[in-house]
Structures are given as structure tokens and as C-alpha cells.
């Protein structure tokens, strides 16, 4: 089967079985390995991507659901040409929000969707926004700090 969608703004045609996981299509067919697999059953959020503005676990989405969809991954956050980090990535770097880094791409996508949706500034709002993304390194403290740094800035 053939599916047409956009990935990080670029049109992409995937010739894959319809039930192929988006996670595998990204990592193996498109070479976008920034999206990580932590559990394969929607528990850890390491594979979070943004589909049409919504945070979704890429391990739970078959490609057949994505005809015409707009998919965004961690590779699309910064400036692909200059390598310039986005404000959110920079905040994670400065606040210490990334340690081992394996949850980081998914965490960034959850935070990005939250910020774009006009998320609130309270700690509890931020905790709610990343509740689907497990991190074992940070205790979440510095991740929350980083997101607050960006959420506070006028967009």
C-alpha cells in the first residue's frame, strides 16, 4: 500500500503494509532514529511524536491511519540547516532537563505540543502535560524547570 503524509513539513510517500507501526516507518524507512522505542506498548512515551497537533505514541499508530497527516518528530524541532536548537531544546540544555537522553525526544514533543496549545504556567499543568512520558534519570524536576522557562516566554 502507498500512503502520503507530511513528516516535519516534507511530503513523504510510504510504500509499506498498512499496519506497519509509525515508529518503525520513521526509524527504519525514513531513517529518523531520533524517535525512540522504550516499551512498544504505549506506556513510556519515548516514541511520542506530534500528529496533527496531538501528542501520540508512534508505537501505537499504524501507518494506514496517517493518510494526509502532518507528523512532527524531534528532528523537526530545531533548524535542520543551521543546527540551531529551538527555544525548548535550549531550555532543556541549560536547565539540565536531559540526562541519558533516551526519553528526551519524546519528552520534547510532549512539551512542544503543550506549549503550542497555550499550556498554563503552573507546575501542576506542566506535570500533567508530560505525565505520559517516563523519565528515570531526572526526577522530572529539571524537565519541569525547562518547560516553565519556555512557557513563560511570550511567543
Amino acid at each position, binding site marked *: 500500500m502507498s500512503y502520503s503524509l507530511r513528516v516535519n513539513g516534507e511530503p513523504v510517500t510510504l510504500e509499506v503494509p498498512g499496519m*506497519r507501526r509509525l515508529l518503525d516507518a520513521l526509524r527504519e524507512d525514513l531513517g529518523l532514529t531520533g524517535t*525512540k522505542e522504550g516499551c*512498544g506498548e504505549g*506506556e513510556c512515551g519515548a516514541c511520542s511524536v506530534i500528529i496533527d497537533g496531538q501528542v501520540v505514541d508512534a508505537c501505537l499508530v499504524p501507518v494506514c491511519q496517517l493518510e494526509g497527516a502532518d507528523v512532527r518528530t524531534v528532528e523537526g524541532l530545531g533548524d535542520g540547516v543551521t543546527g540551531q536548537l529551538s527555544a525548548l531544546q535550549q531550555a532543556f540544555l541549560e536547565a539540565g532537563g536531559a540526562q541519558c537522553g533516551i526519553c528526551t525526544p519524546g519528552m520534547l514533543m510532549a512539551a512542544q505540543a503543550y506549549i503550542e496549545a497555550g499550556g498554563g504556567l503552573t507546575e501542576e499543568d506542566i506535570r500533567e502535560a508530560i505525565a505520559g512520558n517516563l523519565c*528515570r534519570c531526572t526526577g522530572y*524536576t529539571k524537565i519541569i524547570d525547562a518547560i516553565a522557562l519556555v512557557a513563560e516566554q511570550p511567543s
Partner: protein
Amino acid sequence: MTITTRPPRTAPRPEAPLEPLAAPSPGDIEVGAARAYPLRREGPAKLTGEALYTDDLVFPGAWYGHTVRSTEPHARLFGIERDPGFDWSRVIVLTAADIPGENVVSLISDDQPILAAEEIRHQAEPVALLAAPDRETLREAKSRIRLRTEPLPAVFDPLLATQEFAHFNLAKGDIDAGFAEAALVIEGEYRVGHQEQLYIENNAMIAVPRPDGGITIHGSMQCPYYVHKALKRALRLSDEQAVIVQAETGGGFGGKEEYPSIIAIHAALLAQRLGRPVRMIYDRHEDLAATTKRHPAIIRNRWGITRDGRLVAQDIEVVMDGGAYSTLTPVVLSRGTLHAGGPYLCPNVRIRGRAVATNTPPNGAFRGFGAPQTEFAAEMQVNRIAEALAVSPLELRRRWVYRLGDETPSGQVLRESVAGEEVLERAADAADFERVRAQTADARERRTAGARTARGIGLALAWHGAGFTGSGEVKLASVASLELAEDGVIRVLTASTEMGQGTKTIFPQLAAEQLGVPVEAVEMAPQDTSIVPDSGPTVASRTAMVVGGLVIRAAERLREQVEQVTGRAFGESYADYAREHGRLRVDQRFEPYPGVVFDDETYRGDAYPCYGWAAAVAEVEVDLDTGEVAVRSVVSADDIGRAIHPVLAEGQVEGGTLQAVGYATIEEIKLEDGRYLNDRLATYLIPTSLDAPRIQAILVENPFSGAPHGAKGVGELPMDVAAPAVVAAIHDATGAWVHDLPATPERILAALAGIPAPPPPGISQVRRAVASNVGGDANRELPAEGTDPAPHRPTDPQPMRGPYGEEQARPDD
């Protein structure tokens, strides 16, 4: 069984934007200095997705490897059977007979086979290896293979186990005289269960055949030279033929200390046979089902206290469950035994520790390494004694905590960097411990029968021996190197791995400080055994302290040598030196810390060169109807000698604290017939952002003179202290003592109701297995004939994962 530690919806929402959650207090670190420290070296790569973890690496033509595992806790193994109806021509199958070297995973003892040969000793034990060119063929092959076995009696209860891996005894003073002096004796038995490290990146290894007949391993690991040693022995390779390269590693916490060796060997055996790369990437289910956990332990304490509140006797017995093979168990037990009395001076001490074998998967390294288990028990004792004496738990610790010049049970005199009092006061101050405790006591007094929730506050104190135990560092004789290359690049060469804690950031920082160059001028060489020397394993919180110290010494020598020749400051002249004189390399070998002596034979002396000290105050809210616990805040004050990089150090304290909160409240492995039942991320729960308390890290700096920078290590320390603080807070809220970890709603409600607690953590229930010593089955006869599994019954306890249901295949692969 779940427990949410989510703050209740009615909780007041903070109005103001976030305050900094973890600012170091004035005096420790210059205010605002954190931003002046270098940013995480590999941070941009991790934040953009460019960092390559093992599963991100592409090797054209690679096959997929799989491990066939046992589904019994103890059995005779007669062989494997392949379904003759399947085309095996596109699959290779290896068993123990195919191992060219010794069938041993090289570590401390030689008891663990690479693949079980004649006897299966635990569930999920590796028995055979498969490889296929694609996942579809591999999955089909997995379902067409089975093990021919005959069950043997299994041992699950460590108290009844007869095989001992190790034992240690510590004695000080006269224990009988101590109890004779005591007016009050408090006894307790505390049990702690397994805990999974739960790094978010599963274990992963790729083996690539080399033209010289050797193997290159690319993988997720903490200790490249452990893998190197094990691989050489298993495949009969020379030093040069075995090359181990660490890929970006998505968390370790001890879980990637020793287990990666066996995975690397498995991948290498397949790759060597095939002559092509083999990917051995565990999924979460396999990682949870098969890899090591924190040791369950049973700790019995009997402490004697005089009428005036002096601690005069500590009699402690520690039993740890090592699982089926010894792995690192003797060293875990050693640390657990040495820390079992807690950071308290007592004239009469007897500590007896032993670790035994059961037919459960082997337990191994996990942050804290034996100390969280025994220190939980010690802190429970202190808090219970404070209650019995009707004194504040803070005040009691003030009286008992070690001070400079005190002597530990191993006969070590604490000569420097003793900061138990300081961390205690800092944590208690920051959390306003006595005032809040008075409030919770008042609320408890006035609580009516209709109360739905209760708040409590708890305190704990811990010490953590810095670096390797005993003579470990002397025996390791680690080497770190610094080179000035011909092209003027300064490079740090160590095998110390980055797994999130910041190795790649602090080593260039330490070297640059010594050399007087910008941090950007110092590179890190890759963690590749063909390039870097053996700076020892990345464990025991030793990287900043021990290897960081070697990096500084190497930098001092490099600077001197260059300045001697150029007659100018290193920073101004090293580029000229390199151009004119070429490459210069300094190898710095570990030298024993002066005056630090430990006798392994008598188990006496300086068990550690110094200690880290930590105090935690936790506040909880307990739902009195359901027993659910919300951990609202934790303050952790940690004396780490010197905070080389405060942002990274705070990150260690915060992360370790949350792992300890999980240990205290929700993380438990349940077992049946020696198999982990909750071996998926849907059933083994770790704290989410909503479960996590607000964590305040306070960094305290009492430098250690043996390290040039004074650092004592930070990774493990916070793990020792938060769990007992949470359980003390649950008691403060409810009046109930929960003696077992985790303090689940079931255990809390049982304690409140005064009814028997649920089964203790860490011990397998028995359903089908032939148990030799559990549930009165001791005399049950063995079946006369072998029990072959039904045809096509999967020998693999972990069917392919996916959103489509357990046994179902992913339709596309």
C-alpha cells in the same frame, strides 16, 4: 495493585510561576554560578535526535538475534528440539556446545554459564541462540523450538536456601555487655523486594565480525572492559580481537554494569558463526523478565538503648537473595553489611551478612548496591526507637550520628569529611521539620473517625562509602590518560562511560581547569577499548571522585611537561608545543589514598576512603480509606565533597530521590514459580511526573583530601535515604509502621487494621513448580518422567510485543 501518588485534585495550585526548585543554598555554591558551568557536552546531540543509541546504528546485512530462554525455575536440560516441519535453512541455532571458549560469563565467580548446558537454574535463563535475516523468520523459528527438560525441586525462600554465595561478619565491642546495659531493646524484621533499574533504553548489543577473526561490539553499557574480559574468554580472542565500543547509553543505574557482558557474548557467538553483524536488541518485556534486579533482603535488627537514650548495642542479621548465580552478589552484600548499622556510633556491634542462592533470576547491581536495603532497616529502627523514647527523630539522630574521630564497626576511624550532622540540620531546616511535625502531630490528635486523609512528615539519614569497597580501587589500578595530539587537540582518554550522569561534561571541565584552557579545547576520546585505557567500571559513584581525580593528576603532569619545555603557560604554548614536538601523552595510574588500609582477610580497616552523607525529609498524604500515598515533597541534603557541576549533581540527587520514592511506594516485582509476573511496563510501574514529589536538592561540600578536587561521588547517595523518610512520613500520618518495602496500600491498610500483611516482597509464590522448601511441598515427589511442553508451546516467555495482542504477530515485520 496500583497506588497513585498523584496530589489530590483539591490541592492548592501554585499561583506564581515556578520558583527554582533546587537552588543550592548560599555558601555552598556561588549564587548564579550554575549558568557559568559548561553545558552538557553531548546535550545538543541528545536534544536533536542525532545521538546514536545502539538500536539507531545501521549495519547493512545484519541479522536479528534472539535468546531462547527457560520457562522453569529449576530443571534438567536434555536438549532442544526443532520442529522438523519448519525450514531451518535460513536460521542458525546455537547451544552451549557451540561456544568456542569457556561456557562462563566472566565476573567474580565462574558459576554463570553463557548458555545453560545440562541444568536450568532459573526462569528466563538463556539456553539457545537463534539468528535470522529478518524478524518474520526469526519469530516463526522461535515458535518452532522447544526445550526437553525434567523439573527439579526449586528453592525460593532465602531463609531456607542452603547454597551460600558469600558471608561477612563485623564485630565491635561486646554485644552481650551492650544488651546487658540496655534498658530498652527494639527488634524488627524488615523485608525489601526486587527493584528494576528501568533505564528507558532497553539492553542492546550489536556484534560485528572483524577481519582479524575477532568481534567488535557496539552496545549499551556501563563497563566496556567488563565486556572485553568476558568476550575474550568466551570466544577465545586476543586483547586486540575483542573491541568494545559504547554506543550512546540510555540509562544504566547498575542495570548495565554486568548484564551487558552476557548479551554481547550472545550476539558475538551468532556473528562469529554467521560472519555477519548480528543485532541483539531486547524489548522491554525481555529486559524486565531476564535481566538483573536489586537484591531482595531480609534484615533483622535488635538494638539496645540505655535509659538516657544512648545506643549501646546493634545486633544485625542481613540475608540477601542473590538469585541463581552469584553475579556481583558478594560485593553487594559486602556494601550492605558495612552500611547496615547506619551512620550512628555504637560501642557494641555485631553485623552478620550472608547472601544465598535461590532459583530466581540473578540479582545484580542497582544504584546503592546493597546499602539502600540495610539502611532502610536501620532508619526504621531509629524512627521506631524515637517513638518509643518519645523524642524527636531529629534529636535522636543528633545524639547518635557519627562525628569526626568516631570508629565504625569495621574499626575505621572517621578522620575527615564527616558531615552527618550538617546534612541533618540542612535538610531539617529547609523542610521546617520540627514545625511541620508538630502540626501533623496536632492534626493526628484532633483527627476524627471520619477523616479521609492524613498528612505526615518523615526524616532519614544515611552514609554511603565513596568509591569501591575495601581494597577494590587498589586492585583495579585504574588508568586515565590525557594526550596532546600533533594537531593540538587535547583529549581525555578513559573507559568511563556517559549514561546520563555527565562524565563527558565534567572530565573536560576538570582537565581544562587544571590546564588553564577553555573547556571547549578539551575533547573526549570515544569509549572504545581499542583507544582508551581501562579506567575501571562506571559504577560505585566512583567516576567523578576516582577517575576525575586521575584526570586532574594527568592534567597537572601534562601541563608541567609542556611548560618545562616551552617556558610559558600551558594555555599559551600547548599549540606550539604540539607543532614542534608532536604528540605527548600522560598515563595516570591510581595510587592508594594515603593512610587508607583495609584487610580483606579480617574484614577490618578503612572500608572506604571516606563517606558521603545524606539526609532526607519527606512529606506525604495518605488516603485513609484506600491506603494510597501521595508523596508531596522531598528535601534531600547531600554531602558530596565537591559539586563539580552543580546542575548535573542536583540532577543526580533529584533522580536518585525519585527512584527511592518509587522503591518506597510502588515498585515491586511479584513472582510465581520463580518467574517475574509483572514483567511489562504496563504492570511494573515507576513514578510519572504526577507521582513525583517536588524535590529539593541541597548540595553540601565537605571535601575529601585524597581526591585532588575533593569530590566524593553523588550517584548512589540519594538512593539510600529517601525511602525510609517516606515510610517514616507514612507512620507520622497514620501511626502505622510498614516494615516491608514497598509500602503499598495493602501493607498500609493491613498495618492500620492490625491484620496480617500481604505476602512479603521478593519471595516467589508457588503454583506449578516443584518447590523444595516453600508451602509445605518439601516432600513432594519428582515426576517419574520428563514433562515436555506441549507442541508449539512457546519456550520463550516473551511473545512479540505490539499493540495487536500478546501472541499476535506484528502484521508487517
